């Protein structure tokens, strides 16, 4: 709360992740995210996008561990913080939305309760008050009849609705940083647009910084002004999104862009579209009737 506006919310420096000291998986990744900025992280499967996000959250699973570098969050070094203090930050100051909306929610608890838990943990509210806040949170993510939905169980909701619940939960405590790890990959194209729009809108309204992980260049183009490209555990390029599409510097990035079908015409189409997309993201008109604005997945099946 004491950080200056111009200072990055998140500053990752030379982050290294490995299995033990020997097997390095992430070989020194550095990037900054400014307050209110949406930073894109692209790269093909296995390039280390998810583990980067998880290490910021402090959620790396056992064989994986951070072996070096620094993660500054609002000027505070996270890697030397004790686990209790880190847990306090999770959910409250930094939140994460995952790819799989089908399994990311507890099947045995109502979604209202799962959102309400955020207020119980971080705001010390009683369950009854927290429930009211949870309904408000659902209302914020445009869930129709939120009162009723709050009483639903995850299996009673569609994928897109569940992802909205996840977003409502993640943003419940108005965090400074939202890490969205492929938030729309598992959703129908038509639903993707709405969910992305929601993330863009809410993060803009609250000034939340977003780390948007995707391997869909179309999504990144829609959402981010700056983008980092990852390849085999390295950040190989970082540029303004538009510049990246126009003048990819790194050979790998060029390959990434070229991996899309019918290179010439598509790239032109992409350029033409990009200019209008900047306005379109925040516009209310964009929605289900214009699903084409989200380009189809580009290189999901590509191998290194």
């Amino acid at each position, binding site marked *: 709360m004491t950080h200056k506006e111009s200072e990055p919310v998140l500053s990752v420096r030379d982050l290294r992740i490995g299995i033990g000291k020997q097997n390095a998986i992430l070989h020194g990744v550095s990037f900054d995210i400014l307050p209110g900025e949406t930073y894109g992280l692209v790269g093909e499967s296995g390039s280390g996008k998810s583990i980067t996000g998880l290490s910021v*959250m402090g*959620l790396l699973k056992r064989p994986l561990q951070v072996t070096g570098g620094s993660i500054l969050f609002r000027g505070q070094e996270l890697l030397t913080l004790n686990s209790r203090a880190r*847990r*306090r*930050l*999770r*959910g*409250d100051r930094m*939140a*994460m939305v*995952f790819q*799989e909306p089908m*399994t*990311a*929610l*507890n*099947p*045995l*608890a*109502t979604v*209202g*309760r799962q959102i309400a*838990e*955020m207020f119980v*943990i*971080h705001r010390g509210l009683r369950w009854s008050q927290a429930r009211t806040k949870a309904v408000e949170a659902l209302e914020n993510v445009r869930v129709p009849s939120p009162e009723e939905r709050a*009483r639903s*169980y995850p*299996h009673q909701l569609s994928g897109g609705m569940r992802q909205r619940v*996840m977003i409502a*939960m*993640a943003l419940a405590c108005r965090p400074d940083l939202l890490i969205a790890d492929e938030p729309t990959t598992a959703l129908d194209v038509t639903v993707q647009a709405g969910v992305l729009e929601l993330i863009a809108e809410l993060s803009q309204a609250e000034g939340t910084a977003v780390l948007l992980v995707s391997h869909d260049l179309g999504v990144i183009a829609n959402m981010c002004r700056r983008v980092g490209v990852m390849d085999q555990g390295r950040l190989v390029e970082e540029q303004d999104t538009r510049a990246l599409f126009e003048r990819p510097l790194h050979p790998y990035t060029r390959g990434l862009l070229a991996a899309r079908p019918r290179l010439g015409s598509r790239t032109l189409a992409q350029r033409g579209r990009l200019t209008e997309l900047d306005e379109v993201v925040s516009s209310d008109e964009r929605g289900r009737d214009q699903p084409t604005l989200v380009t189809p997945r580009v290189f999901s099946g590509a191998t290194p």
Partner: protein
Amino acid sequence: MKAGGTGVPVAPAFNLVFGERQPSRMMRFILRRTLQMIPTLLVVVLIIFVIFSVVPGSFISSLMSEGRNATNADVMAHLNQQFGLDKPLLVRLWDYLWGLAHFDLGISYRTREPVWNVIEPRLWPSIKLALAAMFFAALVGIPLGFVAALKPGSVIDTGTMMVAISGLSLPEFWFGLLLMYVFALQLGWLPSFGYNADSFQHLILPAIALGVSPMALLARTTRAGVLDVMNADFVRTARAKGVSEPRLVRSHVARNVLVLVLTTLGLQVGSLMGQAIVIEKLFSWPGIGSLLVDSVAARDIPVVQGAVIVIVLWFLVINMLVDVAYAAVDPRIKVT
């Protein structure tokens, strides 16, 4: 974590247990499951009838083996007639089913009493033993499984699983003898055998002997369940929310594990009454199991049939209760 009870104000207690479910739905479910027990019971009765018409020996021949003089042809004919044994098998089966439909289990060959009067005093001791064994199994097995899973690879984990494996592989007869020897004969803490309706002490050793193998199975199932659930995506979500580990286990993992463990628990409890035969004999426990053994030896077929029906009914009822419990715990399960 209880499901929200914000639904119909008419039945708040019901809602507390069954969440937003319609009470009538649950009642219909129970009713239907009860009716579904009838064909199962019919099959069981049929099997017993066939078996006892095939196995050699009859009640009368068993009297002979007890050294009583029943070889007199007149006496035999009289007995046969009295018990209806002179009738063809199908007629006897029909008579039996007809009686069953009127809640009449027939007359014991041995005591000449209605079978129900023979079985009834044995019911409560049997149920008591099964429930005590289940409580032992659940109260020890489930926490052990949790502890083992939350510290995988630790001394507690390996120790627990070693105990669990030995618990599964030891014959319960042998284990019962061991308990008897140590706690009754050597230490003198508990009575070695017998039954006392008012005494809890008589219950302890047979309950542990009977409960040890379900306990071991529950420990293993729980451990596997916890490891499974801890890897679930929603646990990662809960961690990302900042949920503390104790809270995570308490309010997210435990219920999900319970759903996984419920099946094992139900099957174990359901079969406990049947499994108790050996233990009841060993500890001279006056339950259905020892009655069954004695009645088979005496070819007292009506009592055997009655006892088997009780054991099967227990299994069916417990399984129905498990399904009801499922519906109460897991909102994904539809009760129709």
